[in-house]
């Protein structure tokens, strides 16, 4: 609000100045002068910023003091064009909202100013003005750059161009201008009308740095050559007939080139375009050229061997977008697709070679895509079409190429396509682009996934897969078997090796010798956790080969979760099994899982009172069987009956410790008893039993009043060794 008031006041002041101060127009009534120079600098600047370039110049002509004040402000211009000829000197001032000129012309004044240091000197030479032209009588050519200096001091301008009119300017004057240090501040040189000799043009191109813009409207000799001729960032040649195809191909790192007339036909242009899109180096952003006189645009010849896209709604029906997709890339894509087709029919012996070719092709394709399309820049100069056509185009590019980043920007420097669409200004466009970029990201992700080298684990023969599985730890096997049925069957067929496995009511522990692949599952009386992990435990038991398996399932948790049919199908190969049990059923279940076991240790809990021994062959064939905390001698009798009926290994032994002392005397009643010495020998009782093998006998020995009973299998002539009567420590109480 405050700014509006201030702005309004300033506009009134400005109006007052125009009315009071500049009183040459008699139609403006004379009023009391507005003392603008009395204003402080900031309001002065604010007031004068509302003035156009003519007003600033006229104001500066009023007094040197005024000029000095104005110089401080440095009024901004967008462009400044200086037109140089012997007849007149014209400055074109382009501001944001107007385009005004000041024209110095050769006048009738006899008095020539030798030097101009102040704008005030021009006051008397004011000739008149119309809407766009302010005319001042001409001075000598020596004063031209004095004027330029004075005017330049008032304005700041990023783009200054000098236009030389060769038909009205002598070569000496032109070279004089170019030699001035002011020429260095110029950004563009234009040579209009007339013609240039090869010598003069060579001298000009030698002198003008390639960083400037160059426009030559004048005629150029057909045999002209210069190494810098096509090196300027922006170059416009009215006559480009001296430019050959090789000249065009040599262009590198240039903004844009415009050739109004050339010697090229459609075939030449096509040849150049093919070279351009396949060139690994940056050539140029835009080339605009007219074909040779009389040439008809043959679209097919122009776009031959180029991947193009016709743009709907473009200014010309022959407007094409040439996509920078290399022909090689197309070939590679075709090659990959051919390999993929062949993969279904290929003989296995050629398979790896096909894969290799495909990998190489994919790798090359990726390199091309990264090099060429890593930053695919689309400028409005290139996208000269309606907004609604950009999405199909971008989709097309995405479909065909591997584009990692799009930069969409409008033309920011030149005005050539200033009438074209400004992509950045369109909200709808931005929204569409953001949506598109999101989709593009997803598509790129998918593309990257497909470009990853495909593994062929599935192609490995089963025996090699099994070899690899043998090296896998327990968890890796468990995870692998969940990937597919084939893998599951393979994993299930391999034995699992462990040092110690403990099944407790609180935890399950799997320990390897090396320590790698140890697994510990704690379920802490939680039946849900237990039921979730039971399949894993069953998986371990299916093919377990372990040194020690200890089962201590006091509250039947594991038993009730692992169903008996599942347990029955399992074969364990163990060195030692230690089972704490509550009942015969529990003991039966666990021991029924044994396929092989060297040492069997059974511990009876307080609640249990077994009178029968589980007579599984795997148990009876163990080298050492130990039964701890027995309460009923019936277990021993049951075991001896089963053992003597089997064919146990020689030197196998059974060790039993009663919970409380029980004598083996009752065993004398057994049918198989062939000899008994109970109470006869000092220190121990002994009973001998026959077996199914007439050459083997079972000896049962118990120390006097001792809870331990030792049973061993001997051949008839074998002597009793004391090692049979040493209690083996498998379980620490």
């Amino acid at each position, binding site marked *: 609000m405050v700014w509006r008031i201030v702005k309004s006041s300033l506009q009134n002041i400005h109006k007052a100045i125009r009315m009071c101060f500049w009183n040459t127009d008699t139609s403006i009534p004379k009023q009391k002068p507005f003392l603008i120079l009395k204003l402080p600098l900031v309001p002065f600047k604010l007031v004068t910023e509302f003035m156009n370039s003519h007003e600033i110049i006229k104001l500066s002509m009023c007094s040197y003091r005024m000029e000095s004040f104005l110089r401080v402000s440095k009024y901004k211009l967008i462009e400044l064009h200086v037109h140089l000829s012997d007849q007149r000197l014209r400055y074109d001032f382009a501001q944001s909202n107007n385009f005004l000129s000041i024209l110095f012309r050769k006048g009738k004044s006899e008095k020539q100013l030798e030097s101009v240091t102040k704008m005030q000197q021009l006051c008397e030479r004011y000739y008149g003005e119309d809407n766009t032209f302010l005319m001042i009588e001409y001075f000598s050519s020596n004063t031209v750059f004095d004027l330029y200096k004075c005017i330049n001091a008032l304005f700041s301008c990023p783009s200054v161009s000098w236009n030389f009119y060769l038909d009205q300017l002598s070569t000496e004057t032109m070279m004089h201008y170019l030699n001035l240090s002011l020429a260095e501040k110029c950004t563009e040189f234009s040579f209009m009308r007339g013609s240039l000799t090869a010598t003069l043009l060579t001298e000009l191109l030698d002198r003008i740095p390639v960083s400037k813009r160059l426009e030559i409207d004048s005629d150029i000799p057909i045999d002209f050559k210069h190494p810098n001729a096509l090196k300027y960032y922006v170059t416009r040649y009215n006559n480009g007939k001296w430019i050959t195809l090789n000249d065009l191909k040599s262009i590198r790192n240039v903004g844009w080139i415009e050739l109004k007339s050339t010697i090229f036909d459609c075939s030449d242009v096509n040849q150049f375009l093919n070279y351009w899109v396949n060139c690994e180096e940056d050539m140029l952003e835009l080339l605009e050229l007219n074909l040779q006189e009389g040439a008809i645009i043959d679209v097919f010849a122009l776009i031959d061997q180029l991947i193009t896209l016709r743009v709907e709604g473009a200014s010309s029906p022959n407007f094409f977008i040439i996509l920078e997709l290399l022909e090689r890339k197309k070939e590679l894509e075709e090659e990959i697709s051919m390999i993929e087709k062949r993969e279904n029919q290929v003989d296995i*012996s050629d398979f*790896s*070679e096909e*894969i*290799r070719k495909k*990998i190489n092709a994919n790798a090359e394709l990726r390199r091309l895509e990264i090099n060429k399309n890593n930053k695919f820049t689309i400028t409005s100069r290139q996208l000269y079409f309606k907004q609604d056509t950009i999405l199909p185009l971008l989709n097309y590019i995405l479909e065909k190429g591997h584009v990692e980043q799009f930069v969409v920007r409008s033309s920011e420097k030149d005005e050539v396509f200033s009438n074209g669409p400004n992509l950045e200004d369109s909200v709808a466009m931005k929204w569409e682009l953001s949506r598109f970029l999101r989709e593009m990201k997803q598509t790129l992700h998918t593309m990257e996934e497909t470009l990853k080298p*495909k*593994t*062929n*684990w*599935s*192609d*490995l023969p089963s025996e*090699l897969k099994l*070899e*690899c*599985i*043998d*090296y*896998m*730890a327990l*968890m*890796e096997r468990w*995870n*692998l078997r*969940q*990937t*597919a*049925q*084939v*893998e*599951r069957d393979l994993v299930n067929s391999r034995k699992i*090796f462990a*040092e*110690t496995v*403990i099944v*407790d009511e609180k*935890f399950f*522990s799997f*320990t*390897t010798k*090396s320590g*790698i*692949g*140890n*697994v*510990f*599952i704690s*379920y802490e009386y939680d039946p849900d956790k237990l*039921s*979730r*992990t*039971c*399949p*894993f435990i069953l*998986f371990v038991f299916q093919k377990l*080969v372990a040194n020690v398996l*200890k089962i201590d399932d006091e509250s039947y948790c594991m038993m009730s979760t692992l169903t008996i049919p599942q347990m029955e199908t399992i074969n364990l190969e163990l060195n030692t099994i230690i089972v704490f049990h509550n009942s015969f059923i529990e003991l039966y279940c666990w021991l029924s899982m044994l396929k092989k076991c060297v040492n069997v240790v059974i511990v009876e809990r307080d609640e249990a009172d077994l009178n029968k021994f589980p007579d599984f062959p795997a148990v009876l064939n163990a080298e050492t069987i130990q039964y701890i905390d027995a309460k009923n001698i019936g277990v021993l009798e049951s075991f001896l009956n089963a053992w003597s009926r089997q064919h146990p290994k020689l030197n196998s032994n059974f060790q039993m410790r009663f919970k409380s002392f029980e004598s083996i005397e009752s065993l004398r009643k057994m049918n198989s008893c062939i000899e008994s010495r109970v109470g006869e020998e000092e220190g121990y009782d002994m009973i001998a039993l026959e077996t199914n093998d007439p050459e083997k006998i079972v000896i049962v020995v118990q120390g006097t009043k001792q809870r331990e009973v030792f049973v061993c299998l001997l051949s008839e002539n074998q002597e009793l060794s004391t090692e049979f009567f040493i209690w083996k420590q498998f*379980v*620490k109480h």
Partner: protein
Amino acid sequence: MSCEEPTTSPTPENNITVVSSDGKEFLLDLKLTEQSETLARLISNFEYDRTDVKKDPVPLGNITSAQMQKIIEWLQHHRYYPKWEQNDIHYSTSFTFETWVEEYLNIPNNEMFELLNAANYLNIPRLFSTICRIMASRITGKSAEQIRTVLNIKTDVKNDVYTGIPIQEDSSSSEDGMSEISLSPSPPPI
């Protein structure tokens, strides 16, 4: 263990020529072939270790030149290593490798599989065992889904006839059960 020593260039007397599937010939020192049981047996049967016996090129139809190149690199590196003795892998699985091996086998999975096939064909136990271990190490710590991605395994779990939902035998345990598994606290001693 590193036994790097300067390698000697093979001479006609102490080498054989092997031909890869794509027709490229490789001159192999007999000393190197000792690491390959297939080649060693072949040389022994044909008495190629004798200087007076004419040695025909040995065609290796299952091995490409690129694979052969890689294998020769392995053989050269292990030229002076002691004879390979298979440890009990079931009790000493280890995923640590010497730096050279890690660099040598820092290759895509598909190349690794091809090399595994080649090592199996030529019966080079040290290389075969190392690749198996490397393969096992590549899925260490990965879930079933991640393993599917790494090894490009397509699941073939059957769908329920009525619901169309995939039936997984161990579905109840595969996810929830796994999360219960930890390595600590360690179990008490037996």
